[in-house]
């Protein structure tokens, strides 16, 4: 027995020594001095330049949406062997060129291959013929009809999104409960809530920025148009000039006017505020009970992903109850882009069902592909419920001859800047007339 044990130790010692003997020459092996010492480098010139917004970030914060998007881009890079080089921009302040302005400039100057564009920019560039038709892509076949409709300009599908962006009201349900308030369904109820908050010492019940107040307008303007069962005819009437955009827009503008007049919105501050940057801290600090934001903000730590209170995301008040507003952002490829073909391939991968599944799972958003569905976070359930019911308004529609998202935003800014509702309506009329070729 003992001898056996001794034998075992001896055997191990022998193996150890033999291993050492083998390793010694390997460790002492010299390097060959007569060769090119540079490691051979693979030359891969295929680059796709991708222009996208830059987000100002906090240290160590995790942006789920960005992570999700990056995962799909990494998938494309791996599949296609290309490098996606990001160019980013964001405005430093309201005096700076907006992202949309820069996107327009860059697309018109063919600076990049792939663009992430807001709805108005999509329509503008689409109309100028600066974007490629994407309807031939495999991924385009999986898109929901509403996405195709909203992004088709002159019969060309010019953009494909990775998520359906839905805007809603982010409310602090704890504060509503605190003051015995129900979540508002109609504009009147909303005003009543604001009154109660204001009376209870909340100076500005609604946190706003210079971008997203237009969502209130869309909800009230198009609640009936999109949910009344006569959508196509009403749009046709607008396009032909029989109906006036200003008539649709007026109630929303008047509503905004009331909010401003009654001090429920700080118009001056809003006019120079960037999205989330200005109103976000107050909302998270529970000083402001209501803000407006897009779906993904509820998932992202950089926005409202981790509130300390019961946050609910509901639709905007309208005659038909809470109304989600859905503009269509999307990826587009420059018509004369230097690497247009590679950009198309990248887009095909990042909007494929597989990539969208990954994106939606990571980000928990509504997917544009009819084949992908994912559970949303609890806060988004009220909003999601309405969308599932098919009740929402579009913030942009390529079928309308007046671009909605960008123009409305601009006109709301005019309102914030002191223009009257009538002046704002006149602006809409001018736009419509221009579209009809009357001026």
């Amino acid at each position: 027995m003992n001898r056996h044990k001794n034998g075992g130790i001896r055997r191990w010692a022998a193996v150890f020594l033999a291993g050492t003997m083998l390793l010694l020459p390997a460790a002492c092996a010299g390097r060959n001095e007569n060769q090119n010492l540079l490691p051979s480098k693979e030359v891969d010139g295929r680059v796709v330049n991708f222009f996208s917004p830059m987000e100002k970030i906090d240290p160590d914060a995790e942006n789920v949406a960005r992570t999700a998007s990056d995962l799909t881009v990494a998938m494309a890079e791996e599949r296609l062997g290309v490098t996606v080089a990001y160019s980013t921009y964001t405005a430093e302040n309201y005096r700076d060129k907006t992202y949309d302005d820069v996107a327009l400039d860059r697309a018109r100057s063919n600076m990049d291959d792939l663009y992430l564009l807001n709805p108005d920019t999509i329509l503008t560039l689409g109309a100028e013929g600066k974007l490629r038709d994407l309807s031939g892509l495999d991924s385009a076949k999986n898109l929901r009809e509403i996405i195709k409709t909203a992004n088709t300009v002159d019969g060309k599908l010019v953009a494909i999104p990775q998520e359906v962006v839905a805007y809603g009201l982010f409310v602090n349900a704890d504060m509503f409960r605190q003051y015995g308030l129900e979540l508002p369904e109609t504009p009147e109820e909303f005003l009543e809530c604001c009154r109660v908050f204001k009376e209870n010492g909340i100076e500005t019940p609604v946190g706003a920025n210079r971008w997203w107040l237009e969502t209130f307008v869309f909800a009230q303007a198009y609640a009936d148009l999109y949910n009344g069962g006569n959508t196509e005819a009403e749009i046709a009437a607008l396009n032909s000039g029989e109906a006036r955009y200003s008539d649709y827009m007026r109630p929303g503008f008047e509503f905004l006017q009331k909010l401003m007049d009654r001090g429920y919105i700080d118009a001056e501050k809003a006019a120079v505020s960037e999205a989330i940057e200005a109103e976000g801290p107050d909302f998270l600090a529970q000083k402001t009970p209501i803000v407006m934001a897009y779906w993904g903000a509820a998932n992202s730590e950089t926005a409202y992903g981790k509130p300390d209170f019961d946050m609910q995301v509901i639709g905007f008040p309208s005659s038909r109850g809470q109304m989600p507003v859905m503009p269509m952002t999307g990826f587009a490829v420059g018509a004369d882009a230097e690497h247009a073909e590679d950009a198309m391939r990248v887009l095909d991968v990042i909007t494929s069902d597989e990539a969208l599944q990954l994106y939606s799972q990571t980000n928990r958003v509504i997917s544009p592909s009819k084949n992908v569905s994912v559970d949303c976070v609890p806060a988004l359930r009220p909003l999601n419920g309405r969308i599932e019911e098919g009740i929402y308004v579009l913030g942009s529609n390529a079928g309308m001859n007046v671009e909605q998202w960008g123009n409305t935003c601009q006109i709301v800014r005019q309102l914030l800047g002191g223009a009257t509702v009538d002046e704002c309506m006149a602006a809409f009329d001018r736009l419509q007339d221009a579209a009809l070729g009357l001026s």
Partner: protein
Amino acid sequence: MKETADKRERRRGVSLLLSIVLIFCIFGTIVYMVAQKTSQEMASAAIQSLSESLDLIQCTIEAILNSEAEFQALIAQETARAEDPEDFILSASSNRTIVKLSLIPAGRTQSISNNGEVFTAEGLDFSAGGTVRGMPVSRSYLNYMGTWSYTIKCPVERDGQELGTLYIEYVYDSIDRALPSDGFYNKQASLYIMDAESQRFVLKPKGMGQRNAGHLNLDDFYRANNIQDPGIRAEVEQCLGEGRNLLFYHDIRSVNALNYMWSVNGGTVFLVGYVPVEAIQQEGRTVNQNIAIVVAVMLAAFFLCVILYYFNWRQQEKLRREREQERRLHSRQLSEALRAAQVASESKTTFLSNMSHDIRTPMNAVLGFTTLLSRDAEDPAKVREYTNKITASGQHLLSLINDILDVSKIESGKVVLTYEEFTLNDVVSSVDAIIQPMARAKGQEFHVEVTGLRHEYLVGDETRLNQILINLLSNAVKYTPAGGHICLRIIGLKQRSNQYEHIRIEVEDDGYGMTPEYLKTIFDAFTRAENSTTNKVQGTGLGMAITKSIVELMGGTIDVTSEVDKGSLFRVELELRIQEGQADRRFWEAHGISRILAVDEDAQSRETVRTLMEDTGVQVDAAARVEQALEPVRGGAFQLVLLGWSGPGSDSLRAVEALREALPGGTPILLLAEHDAQGLEKVRESGPIEMLTKPFFVSALREKVVRLWADADMADSAKAAYAGSLEGLRFLAAEDNEINAEILAELLELEGASCEIVENGRLAVERFQRSEQGEFDAVLMDVQMPVMNGHDAARAIRALPREDAGRIPIIAMTANAFAEDEKAALDAGMDAHVPKPLDVELLKKVVRQCVEGKEKR
């Protein structure tokens, strides 16, 4: 003393431990110092390395700016030379570096750029005062292409007269193209180009963008990288103002990094970014890792050595302990052996003294009475008395010698059991025949009981079984005073296997009993109960040892319980193989017996009959009283009636009469009675009746049936043979010892037989060869003889070409009295074996059997 040694040992252990700790401390300090030094050197090397890289980039950018400025000076000269400077500008085309050329003639505020757009200098901010080669550089801005750009202006002069100002817009993208596409430090470094005036980041690393956020401006950079230290920020501000370079350590996302602000072109542009220290110190990390590996390997080797030493020590310790244990075991075994030897020696001494006493006592009697015999030879009465006493003493001496020989044989393992078929009936009868007279002589009552037995035809060593029973019973007789009771019980226990009969033999007496101390040694050889009472009894003290050895040899057990003055009970349990086919149904069928009646008041007796007859195929009807079975008896249902005798005062007599009356003629009644049953005379007087001794055995019944059914003539001749002696027989005896020969001749003569003695085997063979056929009735053959021994002689006789050579009875007569001697004799062709000293009764019995058997053949 021992305590002091322990303390010293402990102190030595502590100082050894302290020494090891000290060595480790010194070792650790050295390693730490080396690591520190390496780390410091690496840090300064890292700073050096990063500075060089940044210098390189700085020079590259400055070279580009200078080239652009030189180019612009050239264009300005060309424009001045042109006839129409504005036309010249408009005709210039843009490229990837110069995206817009504009000339504002002196005295005007706007003009047309080469791209056809209206150009004014209003949007351009030259207030910061930055220059390249003396030409003012504007603050960076986003141009019409949506990309960051800057404009350099210079005057267009002809002959000292200023024609206007030339504005050329350059994009940062051209600088970007000049920078290494892979970044530096293996893409781990981040590099931004910041416009010093606006603090906007105008060039960002490609491929970062969304993935690593990118930064908008210096504030964003601070926030994103959590640079909140006011000291650092103030220092940065100062550097920006002075156009100085700055390097500082700051963790970026928990990674130690070198952050930099590197002035380019006198501070109009800054390189901003950070490099993880690890990325710069890749080789340093490797060095550190290697140091760590070396230290770890050394420590591992050290601990391995310690472990090996420990295992070795433990093994040595184990071996030492094992040896110690072995030594202790040996010494214990030696002392035990010594004690055993002493005990053995003592008991042998005791034995020898006992033997001396026991042998001398009968020998004294023999010699004494021989002396008396020679003196009183004339007085026949005294002669008879003396010879009787001499015989008794001789018998005792013989049994003593037999026992001693038996013990020595058993102890040397030479005893072999001889397995033969036998019936318990024979065993019980022979034991009964021996013990009954002994008991009667001592005025004791001896009973035999058999219960629960299923089979009586068994296989085993009958002789040894007899020996067991006789040893136990003769002991009981010896140690029971007159008037005592001795009982032999044979009890059939539950069978463990259907091939073996499991029996318990109980020998119980109400004699002197034994002390608990003696009970412990009763089965040891050479021990004997020593007290005043038992000293009256003669014995070798070997009987119990022999009995136990035989029982164990048979695979059985023996135990004893005893109480002084109350008696003893010996219990032997044995398993004996059942004979195959012993039932022999054909025997009963052949004798026409299919149903018998057993009448006995004792239920156990009835049960015994029924159990034992189970395999015979004979139906047994049992009844406690004869009246219960009279009806079928009259009907002639039974071929045989067994009637238990319960004494003269009982109903047995009437029962016999009732049966005689009821039974059809010729149906025999067998009276089952104890050996010494009283009142049987009356039954015999009342008419013929057959007896069967209790306990009941099938074999005994069979013999009885054979006798009853047999031919009358046969019965008569058998009777004669049983009753007869050796009268008229003539023997040929081979015996080399003269005295023995004489004794033999005398004894046979006394029995009325004649004998011719020859001196060895050869002579016996020759004499037999010469003899007439039928001249001798049997040959008595000694075994150990000169010339030719008994075995060879028997073989030779059997081989003779005579008709009677094969059947003449040859009886071995030898002092070789063991079972194997008997077997050897039978193997040699002899018919029987009679041990010496010669027992005339035994000889008669054997001769009778042989002669009778041969005659039957």
